[in-house]
């Protein structure tokens, strides 16, 4: 029940070209910004979007030209797409019934699945009489009731409010863990990806830019998008020993590098000063405040200068500096907190 796919979809202004693998029981998250081609990839796997090239193989079976109804792929759509004229039970029974089960068998299977997602009491309700979280669970039960070899989830939590999301995410995690087939989760939310997936595949502009488990990706982001996702300042420059030259700015870093390299540090590593600091920081440069936002308990300050920069400061420090847009300050980062790695 392993997935091996190479998806090529060519459109006028956009080309998707990604290779995806997923092992039985593995949850792979396809993470990327809007318009990266994630949903196109999902539709191609489900057979809803024709491939311009490449292949889809599931458990060794070539699905490339197989129509969606014969693929054995379960899909949880972003806004669930529950059939509004059918009860929750009949929505879930729809798949088994189409796959040759009798009406009674299908309803039995559906009842069991609704029970598993904790909605046994809501079996006869129409979708519009269910809450968002309940609808999401019905959609999940409906996709799983056909025992798919591959389960696809398109932004399964995006339509939920923050509170419901937390509970539903935890439940979803349980169900995905029990699913024996491969799972591909599509999301633009790094938290969903990090919490639900065993492995992350990051797609930008139709191409895979980075793959790996959560630790790898968060520690060594390879694009601005990923860096922003995981909350790091990321620069590309020229490494030379324990320095990386980013434009005119030479950053002192913790790792030995040479040639094209990344330098990365978290916003919390940055300190801001009214004048040039004397302390131990090896990196210091003048910058201008571009904006200030709340960020958790702290304030996140966006700065222009030789490089764009995010810095987290305490409200006290901000008050002390009287931070306001346009203000000139000095930014400082200790060399020990700047990670460097090869491009």
């Amino acid at each position, binding site marked *: 029940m392993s997935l091996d796919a190479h998806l090529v979809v060519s459109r006028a202004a956009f080309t998707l070209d990604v290779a995806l693998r997923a092992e039985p029981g593995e949850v792979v998250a396809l993470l990327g910004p809007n318009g990266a081609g994630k949903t196109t990839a999902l539709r191609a796997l489900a*057979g*809803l979007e024709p491939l311009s090239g490449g292949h889809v193989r599931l458990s060794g079976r070539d699905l490339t030209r197989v129509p969606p*109804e014969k693929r054995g792929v*379960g*899909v949880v759509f972003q806004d669930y*797409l529950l*059939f509004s004229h059918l009860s929750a039970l009949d929505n879930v029974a*729809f*798949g088994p019934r*189409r796959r040759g089960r009798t009406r009674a068998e299908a309803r039995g299977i559906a009842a069991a699945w609704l029970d598993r997602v904790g909605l046994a009491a809501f079996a006869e309700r129409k979708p519009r009489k269910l809450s968002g979280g309940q609808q999401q669970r019905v959609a999940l039960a409906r996709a799983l009731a056909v025992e798919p070899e591959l389960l696809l989830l398109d932004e399964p939590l995006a339509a939920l409010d923050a509170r419901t999301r937390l509970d539903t995410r935890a439940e979803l995690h349980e169900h995905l863990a029990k699913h024996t087939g491969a799972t591909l989760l599509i999301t633009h939310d790094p938290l969903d990806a990090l919490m639900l997936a065993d492995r992350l595949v990051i797609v930008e502009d139709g191409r895979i830019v980075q793959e790996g488990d959560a630790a790898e990706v968060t520690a060594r982001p390879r694009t601005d998008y990923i860096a922003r996702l995981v909350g790091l300042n990321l620069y590309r420059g020229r490494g030379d020993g324990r320095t990386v030259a980013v434009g005119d700015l030479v950053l002192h870093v913790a790792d030995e590098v040479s040639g094209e390299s990344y330098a990365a540090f978290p916003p919390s590593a940055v300190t801001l000063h009214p004048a040039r600091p004397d302390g131990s920081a090896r990196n210091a440069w003048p910058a201008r405040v571009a904006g200030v936002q709340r960020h958790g308990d702290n304030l996140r300050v966006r700065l222009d200068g030789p490089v764009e920069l995010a810095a987290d400061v305490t409200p006290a420090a901000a008050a002390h500096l009287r931070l306001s847009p346009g203000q000139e300050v000095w930014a400082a980062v200790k060399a020990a907190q700047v990670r460097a790695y090869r491009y």
Partner: protein
Amino acid sequence: MGLLVPALAGLLFLVLPLVGLVVRAPWSTMPARLAEPAVLDALWLSVRTATMATAVCLVLGVPLAWLLARADFPGRRVVRALVTVPLVLPPVVGGVALLLVFGRRGLIGEWLDSAFGITLPFTTAGVVLAEAFVAMPFLVIAVEGALRGADTRYEEAAATLGAGRWTTFTRVTLPLVAPGVAAGGVLCWARALGEFGATITFAGNFPGRTQTMPLAVYLALETDVQAAIVLSLLLLAVSVTILAALRDKWVSG
């Protein structure tokens, strides 16, 4: 307020002729006139043929609407324009056109007659055919609109659950556009019920067989305006009652 004045004017424009009918109706002789068997014959024939015509339109028109809304084929614009032809064609011309095709010497009618001994003009089946011809565009346009407005992703969801094209259409698409189909069917039925020109031209006028209410009304006008008013009001009352009942049951529910 800016919208209210023309809205009320529009309402008056539609309702006043009806008021005219009601005011001029010979209420005292109404029961006796309504009890005439010829009147009930015509009414029953009208209701029956309009219902059958609607059934024909549903069977043929819904798939046609689906084709127009979902299939991509060369000349689709032309096909859509052709579908609306009966809307702009004067119904009498429609009746003549039907005669040219299904008549005794028509393109198909001649063959039907010689091969099977079937003749459609001057029969109740001919009435149904004429009514269906004129009323079908109402159904097709309504259902096509509903199909276009419907979210095709539900059909994709059904496909991922293992439903083929036909099952998807009957189990998902049709329930999804049911209000549109119901509205189209009601329009279609109402149009068929009031059909005059194509019917009298193609099916002729014979009491009990092809004389529907509108034909009876027209001929009553020749001799007895009050009888025509009675018949019109009866037709109106029956159609409004049936449409209102259907509306409660299907359209809003």
